[in-house]
């Protein structure tokens, strides 16, 4: 029974976890915007979510593969943070995190309604 509940909410839970990890990486990019030789990092969310949901229930999801971002305009001090792109990604990730949260909340409400009726 608990396993079924777990399975029901697994997708959104994994999505939420990955979103918060990505948020952390993007925050680090913004924080290091002025650090010489810092390389901006990110991961492919779709790929990471697929890998996480493909793992067997109970097994730990694999950590997302963190890659360096390809800068559109490289800077002379070796820093590859592009503030505009990072801020856009950060805002995008925030909204999507909130969306995952909303979906998870709705699923919880659905389950609660089923339990109480």
């Amino acid at each position: 029974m608990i396993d079924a509940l777990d399975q029901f909410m697994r997708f959104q839970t994994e999505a939420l976890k990955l979103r918060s990890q990505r948020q952390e990486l993007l925050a680090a990019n913004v924080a290091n915007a002025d650090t010489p030789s810092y390389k901006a990092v990110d991961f492919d969310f779709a790929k990471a979510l697929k890998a996480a949901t493909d793992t067997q229930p109970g097994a730990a999801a694999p950590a997302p593969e963190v890659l360096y971002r390809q800068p559109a305009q490289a800077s002379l001090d070796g820093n590859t943070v592009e503030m505009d792109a990072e801020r856009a990604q950060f805002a995008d990730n925030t909204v999507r995190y909130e969306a995952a949260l909303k979906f998870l909340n709705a699923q919880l409400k659905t389950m609660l309604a089923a339990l109480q009726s």
Partner: protein
Amino acid sequence: MSLFNIFDIASSAMSAQTERLNVTASNIANADSAAGPDGEAYRAKQVVFQAVPSDEANGNGPAKVRVAGVVEDASPARKVFDPKHPLADGQGYVTMPNVSIVDEMVNMMSASRSYQSSVEVMNTAKTLLEKTLSLGS
């Protein structure tokens, strides 16, 4: 929990930018601190930022910022011809600091903008955490 880590990262950036702002303030304040023929003139100082992994024990995790050190600007001191100046040397030149006001103003604006970005990142993380806490209600 990842979102809590954002507070650490953003606050490390904020303190690094504050230090940069502090050094800039010192440079601008001393832009005209002249020195005599034998005394050393004030030298402009610059901070050096360094990225350090947030999980320092294991050497991984998203990078925080640390001020690796404050270095002195190596550019030559400005010589101003002013024979009436009490600190002028034999040729009538006064040694002035090598502070470039334009550079310092740019540094100041850059530091304050970066600080603002970090504040915004922190605020967003806080909002997200609050929303996560109210999950299921």
